[in-house]
């Protein structure tokens, strides 16, 4: 597992995906995050007390998801998930530079929580019942929805339903992802139409050179690619799923779950700023309101 300690509180947002290479001078937005709590008090024995005592926290996130968690060339991770983790850490009295960000691709998220390798996972992590059997979720802190992206000159694909009518049309998404499961019922033939890769960026390359006709995943991820494409791509159809992103923690840690929900509720301003400095920089992305938290269990 790769581990990166953020060395900078400043975050360069997804718009600077390519700019990350051009030095930091484009980082106009310096999201300082909420003030770090000084010596906060917690009930002894709770996760919060342990973390506050240790003065450091290990957070699992994606390293390859523009807007949410992307590792730049300097080895720092940037994105909305990273900022949300900083808000929670701050309330525990942990400064951004004391957060250990660990890469957790989709497939290992339950595993690292169960194994105690991380204290929490903030990684575009959709809450569902299957996962609830292995971990607990705080939040949701964001509700995404799956959508379809096509090349701008495409008029045949107008939404997920189009794949039944156009059995030649191919759609790309990531192997083993939730979107790959959600799209299956809409396809005339999985064998012929579903293209699976390791990463969305590969799907996007395939879309731009014409080897696939569409890419599907959560709309906010797609919005990032639409903005980057200079008009080459567009979104079609409505969002056809609801993906509430939660923060994965050890199963049954109700106190920690409630603490996270309260922290987010109390830091609306930081939450909005976190969004606007990262995923929200994408044209067409609406600043979300913090969703009503699900009951902790």
């Amino acid at each position, binding site marked *: 597992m790769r581990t990166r300690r953020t060395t900078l509180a400043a975050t360069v947002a997804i718009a600077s995906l390519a700019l990350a290479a051009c030095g930091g001078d484009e980082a106009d937005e310096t999201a300082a995050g909420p003030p770090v709590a000084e010596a906060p008090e917690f009930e002894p024995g709770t996760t919060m007390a342990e973390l506050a005592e240790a003065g450091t926290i290990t957070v699992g996130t994606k390293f390859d998801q523009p807007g949410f968690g992307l590792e730049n060339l300097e080895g720092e991770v940037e994105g909305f998930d990273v900022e949300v983790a900083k808000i929670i850490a701050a309330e525990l009295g942990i400064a951004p530079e004391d957060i250990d960000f660990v890469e957790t691709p*989709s*497939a290992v998220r*339950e595993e690292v929580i169960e194994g105690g390798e991380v204290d929490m996972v903030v990684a575009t992590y959709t809450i569902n019942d*299957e*996962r609830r059997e292995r971990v607990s979720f705080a939040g949701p802190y964001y509700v995404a929805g799956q959508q379809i992206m096509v090349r701008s000159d495409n008029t045949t694909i107008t939404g997920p339903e189009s794949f039944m009518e156009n059995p030649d049309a*191919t759609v*790309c998404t990531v*192997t*083993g*992802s*939730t979107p*790959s*499961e959600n799209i299956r019922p809409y396809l005339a033939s*999985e*064998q012929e139409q*579903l*293209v*699976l*890769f*390791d990463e969305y960026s*590969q799907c996007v*390359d*395939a879309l731009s*050179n*014409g*080897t*696939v006709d569409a890419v599907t995943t959560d709309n906010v991820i797609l919005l990032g690619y639409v903005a980057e494409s200079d008009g080459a791509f567009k979104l079609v159809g409505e969002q056809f799923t609801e993906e509430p992103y939660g923060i994965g923690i050890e199963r049954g840690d109700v106190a920690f779950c409630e603490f996270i929900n309260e922290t987010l509720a109390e830091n609306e301003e930081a939450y909005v700023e976190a969004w606007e400095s990262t995923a929200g920089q994408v044209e067409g992305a609406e600043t979300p309101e913090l969703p009503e938290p699900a009951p902790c269990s």
Partner: protein
Amino acid sequence: MDAVTENLDDYVSGFLTSLSIILWSLVGSLVLGMLIAACRVSPVPPLQRFGAFWVTTFRNTPLSVVLFFCAFGLPELGVIRSFFFFGVLGLVLYTSAFVCEAVRSGINSVSAGQAEAARSIGLNFTQSLRFVVLPQALRTVVPPLGSVIIAMFKNSAVVGAFGVGGDLWSTGLTLTSARGYETLPVFIGVALGFLLITLPAGALLHVIERKVAIAR
């Protein structure tokens, strides 16, 4: 092993997809490998060098990098095909280098005197190749060629990661990551699928080896 029995359909279709990747690649890499070998043993220097360049390039590059160039490089050149095509092509290019070397070392293992003798009794180039050199080369070629082919069968797993989807390997990932099955039973299923291909192939190779291996 519920994970396997509950999803037997997916396993079967994954197995069949893997099998068709393998069969296409088998034909393609044998043909291409022999062509490249022909280049390498031809009397034309640029062809020899082209063959050597081909072998050096594809033998020393990881298959995943070769597949990358097929899946993302060829579309840049205007070649738009399915990822199944690109995947099979990548595996064929990669394997052809190994096939070429197996064939070439077989030809070179035939002592020069054999061909000289063939020519001195009046056989022409094709005749001496067909009746004297190749039958003898075959014996030395079969064992390494067999292991190259079986290695190719196994390498087909990597093709699945390049857009094909629905082969044994991606089926395994779909079941564990998207549907939440435990990794151990799911991948025992994947492993069994591959063994179902490689073990009989290995046994067959053994039989063929015995048939052609006549002490010289």
